[in-house]
């Protein structure tokens, strides 16, 4: 009797609660427009599209970009898959390997682009870029920009010290030794970023993630890895190749701005703006780019890559034509000039030409960086494949933290290999050469 009297109160409260929860309905894929998810750097592109197409409804959502091994997109896509609704039509990701898992079960998010974007448009991307976006024989993304590694040079400081720009890794290392003696405190690179192995080991053809069917080859004992590590170790020790990240306040304080202590730095194409100008505040009229470094006299010259974020269209889009139009526009048309210029080297070749022309006359540079960027665009080593698991946190955790504590890169290669092997196995790959 007593219990029954209470029930109305419980039911009323519960109903109020449930209706409050149900009040907000997710937007997801609008029937008469598209929803696009972009990072902060791609927001201007999405806004420009909306402005140039006032007749189209574009709902722009900004998110963290899924960079640095985050699981934002994995989490969201699984939740959308579980609830059966809410998927955006287009996603931009900062994580170059995201399309690999997005195209596979259980995520099954990325739509093949063959029917959505014509072949004559897609063929304008460099072959290495298209290969990176091809999963299981189907192209599932378009790269926004290329992130080929070049050698960034502080022309002003190099000339002031009377140094010539090295063309081989060996010359670069010899210069590092010289700098340590003659100008201690100056640096010829840095190896403490979560992606430093993409710069220093990818470019030197160290097989740390080489796909052979469903197998991944991880072989840190390969000569390409050990000889590179042996070359870097003395520089890490003498302080000209510090194991610090360019994105930390420590780094900017020590080497950036008024200190201006970066002489050389192997790094991707987007470093000019994002690192030298915005993070380190290197003054205008100092930096330029040189060709990627060669290993001795070996050819062909190969280089690494860092980034090159992809655009992905959802399989679940109810408006895939509009989504494809959006992706085509932001990758092939969007090209503002001056201060608002795209930060990265456009992957779409005809747009890259225009972008390079504008860059050549950019007063920030001490000399035209475009020949080097152009050369490097075709030199990215194809033996490093993108995989579903994140390798960058493994590098940070197993190698960078130990190098900070004083260990040599050579001594850490076996640990790196076995940790990458564990990560690969956990993601369902079989591992060879480890």
């Amino acid at each position, binding site marked *: 009797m007593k219990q029954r009297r209470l029930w109305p109160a419980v039911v009323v*409260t519960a109903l109020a*609660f449930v209706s409050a929860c149900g009040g907000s309905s997710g937007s997801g894929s609008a029937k008469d427009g598209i929803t696009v998810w972009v990072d902060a750097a791609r927001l201007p592109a999405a806004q420009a599209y909306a402005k140039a197409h006032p007749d189209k409804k574009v709902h722009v959502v900004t998110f963290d970009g899924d960079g640095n*091994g985050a699981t934002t997109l994995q989490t969201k896509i699984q939740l959308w898959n579980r609830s059966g609704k809410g998927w955006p039509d287009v996603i931009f990701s900062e994580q170059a390997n995201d399309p690999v898992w997005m195209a596979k079960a259980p995520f099954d998010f990325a739509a093949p682009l063959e029917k959505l974007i014509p072949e004559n448009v897609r063929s304008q991307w460099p072959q290495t870029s298209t290969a990176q976006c091809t999963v299981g024989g189907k192209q599932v993304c378009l790269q926004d920009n290329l992130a080929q590694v070049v050698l960034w040079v502080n022309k002003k400081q190099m000339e002031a010290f009377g140094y010539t720009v090295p063309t081989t890794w060996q010359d670069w290392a010899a210069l590092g030794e010289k700098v340590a003696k003659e100008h201690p405190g100056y640096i010829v690179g840095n190896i403490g970023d979560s992606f430093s192995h993409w710069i220093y080991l990818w470019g030197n053809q160290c097989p740390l993630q080489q796909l052979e069917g469903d197998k991944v080859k991880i072989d840190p004992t390969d000569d390409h890895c050990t000889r590179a590590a042996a070359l870097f170790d003395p520089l890490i020790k003498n302080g000209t190749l510090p194991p610090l990240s360019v994105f*930390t*306040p*420590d780094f900017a304080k020590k080497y950036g701005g008024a200190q201006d202590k970066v002489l050389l730095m192997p790094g991707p194409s987007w470093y000019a703006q994002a690192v030298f100008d915005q993070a380190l505040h290197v003054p205008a009229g100092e930096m330029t780019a040189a060709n990627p470094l060669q290993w001795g006299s070996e050819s062909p010259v190969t280089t690494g890559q860092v980034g090159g974020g992809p655009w992905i269209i959802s399989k679940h889009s109810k408006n895939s034509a509009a989504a494809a139009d959006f992706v085509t526009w932001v990758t092939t048309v969007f090209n503002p000039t001056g201060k608002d210029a795209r930060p990265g080297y456009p992957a779409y070749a005809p747009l890259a030409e225009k972008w390079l022309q504008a860059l050549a006359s950019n007063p920030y540079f001490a000399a035209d960086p475009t020949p080097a960027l152009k050369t490097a665009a075709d030199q990215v080593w194809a033996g490093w494949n993108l995989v579903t698991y994140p390798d960058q*946190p493994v590098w940070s*955790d197993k190698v960078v*933290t130990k190098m*900070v504590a004083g260990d040599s890169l050579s001594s850490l290669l076996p640990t790196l290999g076995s940790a990458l092997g564990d990560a690969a196995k956990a993601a369902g790959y079989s591992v060879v050469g480890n």
Partner: protein
Amino acid sequence: MRVARSRGLHGWRGFAFVVPYLIVLVAFGILPVLYAVKLAFTTDGGGWAGFRNFTHSAGDYRFMSALGHVLVFTSVWLSLLIVFVVTLALLLHGRASRSSAAYRFLYYIPGALAGAASVLVWLFMLDPSVSPGSFFVHHVLGAHLFVESIAPGKLPLIFAMIAFWTGAGGWVVVMYGALNTIPQELEDAARIDGAGPLTLALRIKLPLIRKWIAYMVILSFATGTQLFVEPQLVNQASLGMVPDTWSSNQLAYQLAFRYADFNSAAAISVDLLAIGLLGAVVIISRTGLFKVES
């Protein structure tokens, strides 16, 4: 008859006050637990899996290291919590009420910040180049760079420090409240018998708030083993220098969302639940928390 009826009415009124909490408890506490238990014992397709998810997740190459981290963290943090919270509460209770109120407020402030926000404050505190406590970071942690502050060996201590700073204030207030329930006559009697402040604190007050301490330990033990926010935020802020599977709860999160293996993730959650329950049972049976003195 009349007495019984009025007691019943009181009971109902009390219950009505608890109802909103009960609804939330069921919706966000009990139902998810039941769902996790169901997931932990079933396969991806919904079939019976027995203990396979448990053996699979325990066989993961990160499981033991994560569990080890969590146990070290929990023991460091719990020791800090018990010693400092009880000491601070006893000290406060011995002071004049005005200054004691000011201190209570001071201790409580960090706890008033939402969990994640207070961890973010620590990201700045631990970076020697921006920290207002850079002297402390240099000399106690021996770090000149943020990467050195968060070197793997220091992490349990760092996380314990963050968790203590964010949570201890609230417990100091709770303990103070507990001390206030001690009848004044008891203290007066002890004083007449010649007890000084130290004897009073150790012989009279401490034994009387034993159950509150047990209560704090039970809740904190469960919170400690389920550590997530601190390592997760430091992982992101350090761009991966701290692994994203440092704690068991993070491993469960990664299994669920990176590998889409909700069943193994649920198994780890159930492991943690079992550890928390076991801890509670041991503490309750040792301290007689629920014993009603007749």
